[in-house]
């Protein structure tokens, strides 16, 4: 079996190189049969990579321990779903998954009927990236390496990875990372063919939004996994690897916004090229961080030779792309005009500034330990307080901008319009701030966040209400009909607003859980009750029960808030057959106001136990905001009338 897999990998590599040669020869000699053959090569690459991927999946599911990877990450008693997810539990397997998806995407793209003139270049770029991954799989990280001798039982999967979050988090993240290859490839194709219009942006818009959505999901599910699995009561620790997936998300978000300025006003061409190149580079860089182990992290796969390969590839791809961009700079320059200082386009620029500054600060903080060690020789740590201190104000300014942007028009705004548009949101912000003060909130950050988020929500709803009003006046439709039609005929714009609402909800959750979180530890005997933050917690004793391949020890706990209806929860320690350390599973009771998060920290002979309790306000808003974001993205992507771009405001001469 292993031989089939490895052979397929080698064939896939050969196919990808064949496709590259055919593309180059076909473009040089302008022979369409060569180009068609190259397309065949791309498809062949995808097919053989899929065969390799399928082989590894089959071996994982059937526990074929003749292969090192299967023996290393699975065991016979592992539930089938986790045997499957072991595909991305280790270095080699996750690289194979990457190549699998990438080559499939490449095949889907080159088979497209439209834009045939760009395809040879797009296909070449995608094949270069694919060939790199396939090379790694064949020679550096072969997932089909055989075991010497007989292996009866595998090591099993790391217990921390045996969680539903781990099924979705890596795969969505990879889809996001890989997806950005498509707009990158089209951008490079546009540069090579000297097409300076916004065609490449229009073609790849759906890919871009979809990749961005997957990257958002990847980050969110990662946060959720950390929250329910790591047991420290939080969801984001500014770990280098978390940062590595947040940074391209930020530059990708900047790209999504700045392309609108190019579509509407034919400006920012160089900047958009720069952003997509950087975003693609950062997706590779994120992978480099995980694989190389150069920065301390909980996630490291740690393999230094692989890290070096990635670094070389990143440097080559980035210098090649930037050389191309520099060479075409003259073509992309255009006479720029803004009608006024304050306009929607200015707010887009500010949005880009904040997103890129935030991305830069996170990259800088993540890499600073390495830089500092190289310069001064002493190791330092850049931890969460650094990232919070810098990104909290940038984040809030960014959210405020999200509220301001819809209120100002394209091209220019006069003061009268501005005041009339700002009145309602300002009023909402003021009202909410006063209400929060009355509720007893005094911390500056809480009040500022309250004011800003209510401003944005009011601004978005005002925008919809006004739009519906105008539409009704023009068409005479009824309220529900005109609301639905307004939203669905401008999918892109209102999808964007829905996403903004989701982000605002997430910010509310992040602010609440960071500013007003509380933590207690308590040791109690069976039957004892303790009181904390309005909760009364009764511990009824320790129980033990087998579950699937594990043994679960849980505390029987009854909790009631402010004398309300009591609920039972069970914080657990789970003992896995393949791991000495039990893993801690928190029990969480979640409401819109706050999460009651309890961990069974340890126990004594006499059944007395120690609990760690976190009260995390508003966390549910974070997850709910994530789902709104997904809905908004799908709303915007839904094909049909209204998913295109709005009016163009080109300079008239």
């Amino acid at each position: 079996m292993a031989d089939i897999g490895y052979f397929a990998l080698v064939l896939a590599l050969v196919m990808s190189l064949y496709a590259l040669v055919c593309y180059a020869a076909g473009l040089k000699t302008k022979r369409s049969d060569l180009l068609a053959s190259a397309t065949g090569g791309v498809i062949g690459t995808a097919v053989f990579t899929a065969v390799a991927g399928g082989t590894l999946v089959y071996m994982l599911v059937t526990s074929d321990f003749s292969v090192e990877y299967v023996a290393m990450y699975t065991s016979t008693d592992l539930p089938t779903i986790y045997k499957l997810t072991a595909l991305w539990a280790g270095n080699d397997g996750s690289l194979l998954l990457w190549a699998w998806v990438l080559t499939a995407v490449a095949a889907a793209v080159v088979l497209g009927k439209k834009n045939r003139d760009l395809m040879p270049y797009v296909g070449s770029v995608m094949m270069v990236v694919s060939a790199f991954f396939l090379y790694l799989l064949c020679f550096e990280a072969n997932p089909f390496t055989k075991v010497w001798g007989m292996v009866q039982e595998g090591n099993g999967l790391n217990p921390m990875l045996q969680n539903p979050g781990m099924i979705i988090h890596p795969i969505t993240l990879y889809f996001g990372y890989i997806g950005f290859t498509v707009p990158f490839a089209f951008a490079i194709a546009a540069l090579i063919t000297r097409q300076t219009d916004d065609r490449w942006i229009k073609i790849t818009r759906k890919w871009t939004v979809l990749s961005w959505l997957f990257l958002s999901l990847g980050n969110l599910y990662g946060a959720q996994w950390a929250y329910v699995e790591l047991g420290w009561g939080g969801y984001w620790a500014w770990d280098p690897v978390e940062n590595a997936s947040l940074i391209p998300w930020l530059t990708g978000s900047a790209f999504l916004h700045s392309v609108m300025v190019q579509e509407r006003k034919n400006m920012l061409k160089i900047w958009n090229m720069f952003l997509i190149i950087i975003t693609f580079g950062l997706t590779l860089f994120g992978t480099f961080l995980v694989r190389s182990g150069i920065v301390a992290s909980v996630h490291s796969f740690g393999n230094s030779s692989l890290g070096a390969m990635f670094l070389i590839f990143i440097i080559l791809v980035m210098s090649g792309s930037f050389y191309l961009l520099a060479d075409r700079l003259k073509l992309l320059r255009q006479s720029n005009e803004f009608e006024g200082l304050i306009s929607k386009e200015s707010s887009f620029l500010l949005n880009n500034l904040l997103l890129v500054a935030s991305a830069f600060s996170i990259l800088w903080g993540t890499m600073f330990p390495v830089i500092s060690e190289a310069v001064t020789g002493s190791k330092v740590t850049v931890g969460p307080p650094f990232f919070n201190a810098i990104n909290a104000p940038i984040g809030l300014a960014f959210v405020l901008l999200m509220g301001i942007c819809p209120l100002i028009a394209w091209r220019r705004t006069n003061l009268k319009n501005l005041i009339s548009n700002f009145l309602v949101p300002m009023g909402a912000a003021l009202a909410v701030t006063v209400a929060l003060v009355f509720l007893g909130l005094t911390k500056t950050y809480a009040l500022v966040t309250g004011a800003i988020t209510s401003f944005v929500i009011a601004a978005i709803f005002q925008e919809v209400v006004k739009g519906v009003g105008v539409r009704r006046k023009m068409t005479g439709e009824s309220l529900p009909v005109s609301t639905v039609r307004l939203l669905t005929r401008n999918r892109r714009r209102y999808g964007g607003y829905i996403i903004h609402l989701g982000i605002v909800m997430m910010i509310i959750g992040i602010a609440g859980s960071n500013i007003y979180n509380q933590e207690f530890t308590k040791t109690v005997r069976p039957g004892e009750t303790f009181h904390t933050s309005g909760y009364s917690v009764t511990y009824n004793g320790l129980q033990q029960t087998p579950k699937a391949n594990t043994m679960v020890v849980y505390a029987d706990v009854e909790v009631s808030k402010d004398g309300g209806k009591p609920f039972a929860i069970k914080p657990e320690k789970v003992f896995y057959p393949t791991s000495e350390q039990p893993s801690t599973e928190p029990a969480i009771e979640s409401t819109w106001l706050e999460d009651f998060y309890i961990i069974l920290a340890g126990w004594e002979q006499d059944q007395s136990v120690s609990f760690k309790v976190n009260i995390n306000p508003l966390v549910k808003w974070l997850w709910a905001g994530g789902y709104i974001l997904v809905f908004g993205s799908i709303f915007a992507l839904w094909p049909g009338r209204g998913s295109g771009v709005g009016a163009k405001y080109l300079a008239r001469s």
Partner: protein
Amino acid sequence: MKKTIIILSMVILFVSPGQARANDDYDELITSLMCPACLSHNEILANGQDAGAEQAKEDIKRRLAAGQTKEEIINAYVALYGEQILAVPDKSGFNLMAWLLPPVALAGGAAFVYLAVRGWVKNHSGRRNITRDAGPAIDPVDEDRLDEEMKKYL
């Protein structure tokens, strides 16, 4: 625009990291020190779950109870484990760069954006002076016609 930029840079430059949390000494210590047993994992002490983290937390509690100040405890930990034990680099020497560069970059970027936009606005007004031909306002009949036309697209 100008005002927004100024306000933004002020927010970035003057909001100190301390404001985000105001807890007592113990809470501050466990969030400003890394977990000594798992430095390679890059976890702050407050988040550490294993025995090593618990030991360090107990040690800090003991030291506080014995009357040591926050600074004394931090210094003792730095002496023991090196600067790496601090959750953030201190604001002196080369490490100051960690703190300075992001706000400086943001301010620089803001200045760049402002100058660019101002230049673009000048471009526009310069051109408009040459070709000034504001068309006549739409008369009411045309406006009705326009309304009718637009309905077809709604």
